[in-house]
């Protein structure tokens, strides 16, 4: 051990006895007997590095029974986003206390400024452009406000908020889980009996489902305010005239709410799925992040279209 010679303290003269393999043989050398100098070597090691000595384990902890549950398969198998969604939903009862609140803070509260900023500017731009187009056709701006509110409630607030969350939250989830994957931290979680889906995915899913509608409401309110202010300053539209919700009905409200909840499911699932199946080091993490943002954004667009079409059908049916 103390020697610089790699063979170390056991470097006695090479003994042939007991060897069954030779230079000509490729079969493994099979030797059953153990070295007889364990105690000598133990003493040497513990004396030399006394500080690293361990006390013998004595205490036995009581072991609770495992909680059987769905977990993602070993690395070799690959599932689809639907499988990740099912795994995450199944894992919800086993989420640690406090994990959802923590994720709501990280995913929701910290996204608030970004979402409000984007929706505020988009709201102003949309009303400005709508006003210009309206004045080209008919010199009447009185319906800009009600139409804008209908679009905002039915689709715009939910979709824009979700697209912003897809970029900010989706990328973050994929990058965090993906980097944990490529550094074997997910395997370490599994060995610690911390199912990665329970520990990482399910809290983010629940948090995102809860905060997306809230962010949609706040973002929508900001967009409404900036829209009204734009109408007032640029087109001299009275705020009372602008803030007229006569075009909004229950189906519009329902469509907006259903969309925001659906987006709240889609973003963490698509992103976590991309992260869980990351491979290939830092480039893999980059690819996973890209997949997460693209997948989440596409999911938002497609789900928005489908739910919007359904709402339109219901609306048409109610009008007949």
């Amino acid at each position, binding site marked *: 051990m103390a020697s610089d010679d790699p063979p170390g303290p056991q470097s006695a003269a090479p*003994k042939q006895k007991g060897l069954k393999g030779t230079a000509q043989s490729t079969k493994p*050398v099979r030797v059953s007997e153990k070295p007889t100098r364990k105690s000598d070597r*133990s003493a040497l090691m513990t004396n030399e590095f006394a500080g690293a000595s361990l*006390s013998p384990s004595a205490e036995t902890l009581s072991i609770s029974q495992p909680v059987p549950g769905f977990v993602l398969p070993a690395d070799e198998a690959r599932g689809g986003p639907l499988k990740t969604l099912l795994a995450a939903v199944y894992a919800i009862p086993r989420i640690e206390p406090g994990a959802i609140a923590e994720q709501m803070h990280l995913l929701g509260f910290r996204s608030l400024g970004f979402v409000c900023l984007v929706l505020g500017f988009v709201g102003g731009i949309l009303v400005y452009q709508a006003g210009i187009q309206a004045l080209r056709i008919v010199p009447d701006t009185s319906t800009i406000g009600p139409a804008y509110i209908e679009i905002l409630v039915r689709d715009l607030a939910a979709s824009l908020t979700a697209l912003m969350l897809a970029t900010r939250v989706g990328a973050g989830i994929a990058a965090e889980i993906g980097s944990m994957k490529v550094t074997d931290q997910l395997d370490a979680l599994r060995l610690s009996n911390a199912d990665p889906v329970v520990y990482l995915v399910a809290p983010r899913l629940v948090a995102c489902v809860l905060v997306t509608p809230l962010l949609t409401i706040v973002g929508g309110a900001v967009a409404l305010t900036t829209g009204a202010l734009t109408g007032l300053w640029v087109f001299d539209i009275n705020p009372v005239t602008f803030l007229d919700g006569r075009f909004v009905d229950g189906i519009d409200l329902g469509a907006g709410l259903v969309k925001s909840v659906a987006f709240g499911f889609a973003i963490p699932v698509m992103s976590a799925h991309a992260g869980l199946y990351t491979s290939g080091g830092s480039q893999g993490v980059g690819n996973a992040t890209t997949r997460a943002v693209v997948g989440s954004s596409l999911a938002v667009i497609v789900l928005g279209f489908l739910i919007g079409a359904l709402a339109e059908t219901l609306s048409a049916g109610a009008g007949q």
Partner: protein
Amino acid sequence: MIEFVGVHKRFGEKVILDGVDLKADAGEILFVIGTSGAGKSVLIQQVVGLLAPDRGQVLVDGQDVTRLSEAAFYPIRMKCALVFQHATLFDSMTCAENVALPLRKHFKLSRAQANERALEFLAQVQMESFASTYPATLGDGLRKRVAVARALTLDPKYILFDEPTTSLDPVSARRVDALILDLSRKRGATCIVVSHDLRSIFSIADRVAMLYKGQVRALGTPTEIRASLDPVVQQFITGSQEGPLETT
């Protein structure tokens, strides 16, 4: 006792393990050596279910673990700890929280109880003063000691080390050797150590198995391995660039 019986494993077209037969006896330190890509890490990851063999059996105390579900691996992972090559501590947790996690999850201890126990395990590897430190700020040697503390929390019967001294300075490497030796001699743990560190191998190993081309090429005590006339074994030990040893 951990046994590998005719274990085969391939990734795509690349054959990694081609019928490995190997046994780790109770309380011994078995080193698994071989060139990079020889399948050493793949071999030990199959014990705890991170990978599954394509053919063959991995037996832990006589129980075949090759086709167990994740839930069924729970008791196996209770008695088989794996210390990863790069320590694999959780970046978002302090050292104490890293060590406490298995206690919370396996034993259902409260966060406070688990943290209290974690300090005891950190003290065993002289890392108690780093309890509230985040792993990212630690060097490799210290991180590995925390990883060992985390592995000790379950009082495992078997401890699998994946290149525990790689990238460590000589003093830190010898400290890890001392730790492994203590685990075996004082706790009676069976240690399977994947390594290319010749000083470690010839200092603390009870037996050494060399993997080559997916099979066990040589198996014996360090002295016997060193005396082997097999040119492949000799080239590996001497590190000679000339010889029949093929590297991947």
